[in-house]
């Protein structure tokens, strides 16, 4: 009897905490990617992947080499980057301004939220012919398309972020007698920043998507025009080279926003 009573005390209790916390494993992403590319390379070379379905990764890399050597890479990249930069600059700054207005002012919210909700789901590509009538087939219509595409998600992200600013902090500011402008600048703006930046990731990715659409009309140079040309020629190597450029652009933009986040959001603990 005494033995049976003592037994529960002796049994060790295992540690059940831990887990559910992803850790960083540097380089694993690259290993997965390279492994996948090697499988494709082997598959196409061995013939169980038809050359109609996928290009050989080594051929795509060779296409990149040729693009770099002839200087065409930069001839395509520079116009696209300037279109993305100008379009996104206009769209994002207008979006943040309108988003703040909606977040802060009752009348702006009542008047503009339905409008933004109506504009958001409009496929911007469908409006391309209209943009051409308004802005011609030169750079202006491309800026306008990207600006329009980045504008609505930025507005939605911004006013959502302003809404989520901690109300107790605002009440505290009011208790300490801060002016409206001070509260906006010192509490609302920094408080909304995390939401705005994560919205920016989505807006800029949409901007990159729209780059291809913007270069459908009248563009002779640009990554989007290059991809479209490769598609119409059924040139898979060039197509994948172009798509890879867009992916790398996406990674760079995302990493850039990550840097800005770390810098601007240092105050977060």
């Amino acid at each position, binding site marked *: 009897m005494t033995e049976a009573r003592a037994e529960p005390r002796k049994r060790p209790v295992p540690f059940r905490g831990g887990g559910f916390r992803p850790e960083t494993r540097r380089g694993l992403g690259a290993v997965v990617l390279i492994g996948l590319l090697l499988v494709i390379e082997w598959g196409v070379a061995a013939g169980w992947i038809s050359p109609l379905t996928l290009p050989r990764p080594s051929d795509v890399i060779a296409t990149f080499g040729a693009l770099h050597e002839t200087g065409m890479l930069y001839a395509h990249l520079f116009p696209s980057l300037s279109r993305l930069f100008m379009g996104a600059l206009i769209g994002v700054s207008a979006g943040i301004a309108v988003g703040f207005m909606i977040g802060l002012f009752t009348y702006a919210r009542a008047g503009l939220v339905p409008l933004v909700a109506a504009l958001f789901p409009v496929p911007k590509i469908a409006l391309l*012919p209209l943009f051409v009538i308004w802005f011609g087939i030169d750079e202006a219509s491309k800026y306008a398309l990207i600006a329009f595409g980045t504008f609505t998600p930025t507005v939605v992200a911004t006013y959502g972020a302003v809404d989520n600013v901690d109300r107790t902090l605002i009440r505290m500011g009011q208790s300490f007698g801060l002016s409206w402008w001070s509260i906006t600048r010192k509490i609302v703006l920094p408080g909304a920043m995390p939401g705005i930046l994560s919205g920016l990731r989505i807006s800029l990715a949409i901007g990159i998507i729209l780059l291809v659409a913007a270069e459908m009309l*009248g563009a002779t140079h640009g990554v989007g025009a290059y991809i479209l040309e490769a598609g*119409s*020629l*059924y*040139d898979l190597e060039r197509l994948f080279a172009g798509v890879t450029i867009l992916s790398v652009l996406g990674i760079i933009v995302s990493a850039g926003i990550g840097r800005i986040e770390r810098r601007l959001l240092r105050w977060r603990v």
Partner: protein
Amino acid sequence: MRLNRRQTLSLMGGAAAASGLASPAIARQRAVVGALRLTSHAGSFAAYERGYFDEAGLDVELRFFDAAQPMAVAIASGDVDFGITAMTGGLINLAARGALRVIGGALQEEPGIDGQKILVSNAAFEDGVRSPADLDGRRFGITQAGSSFHYMGSKIAAAEGIELEYRPLQSVGAVIGALQSGDIDGWSIVPHIATALDGSGAVHIIGDVADYIPDYQVTTVFTSRENVDDHRGLTQDFLGAFSRGVADFNAALVDATEGDSAAEEMLRLIHNYVYTDQPFEEASPSIRAGSMRLSPQAALNLDSLRDQLDWFKREDLIDESIEFDTVVDTSFVETQ
């Protein structure tokens, strides 16, 4: 009545023979034919409507596309068996990858028959562009790099010794819009679209493509590599029936040797597929204006096709190493 065993057997044999005679010796073959809603596809429409495909033992299904490029891809994917469109860069690259081959000719330019036109915008016309030579340094509309428009512009520029700035606009509709708004200066297009635009006062016709590319083979008949190698019978049957449709069309509308009633009949037949949103009276002049020669017996014009292939290579749109014989199979039809 009562049958003995021998009678039963002979009856069974007779029934078997009768059912064997009723169905043709060879099973009927299915074929999907890709088409665009253009007069240049009248060969397929006529062969289909007049039962020539049927008589050749083919169960044909017409499948419609909006542009040449998707049709070539659909043949590569096996969704379509036979297609008729221009020899684009995409088609050549698919042929080089072993997916399809050009087996016959269709639409062609011919001196003396109204062919493709060179157009300029009103703004350019007022600016003094009265002949293709005046287009030097101006914007020329194309759908995509390597399209037939790109080839035509390039040949015109080379003949006149001028430089053109090519503007890819993806679709024919977008090119028409840009031409009307003056965003581009010049373009070339099949006659029924050209005359309709010129008639509406939106653009001006300033020349003929035939003057620059006299024997231009505009569109070709192509099929999958599998049909060329493994189903030669099917391919020959298709080309035979298609050629009968082409002959009817040429006789009725291009040479107009069959009289007015035959022409009217052919126009009505084509109207089942082309300009279906317009009443026949409105559509028939456009269809008639678009009647360019279809190559008799689907004959191939090898000189024109070689020239096009070389042009694609010079423009770096296709690989230098692609051989003519990889793209074109000359074993099915006559060549000229």
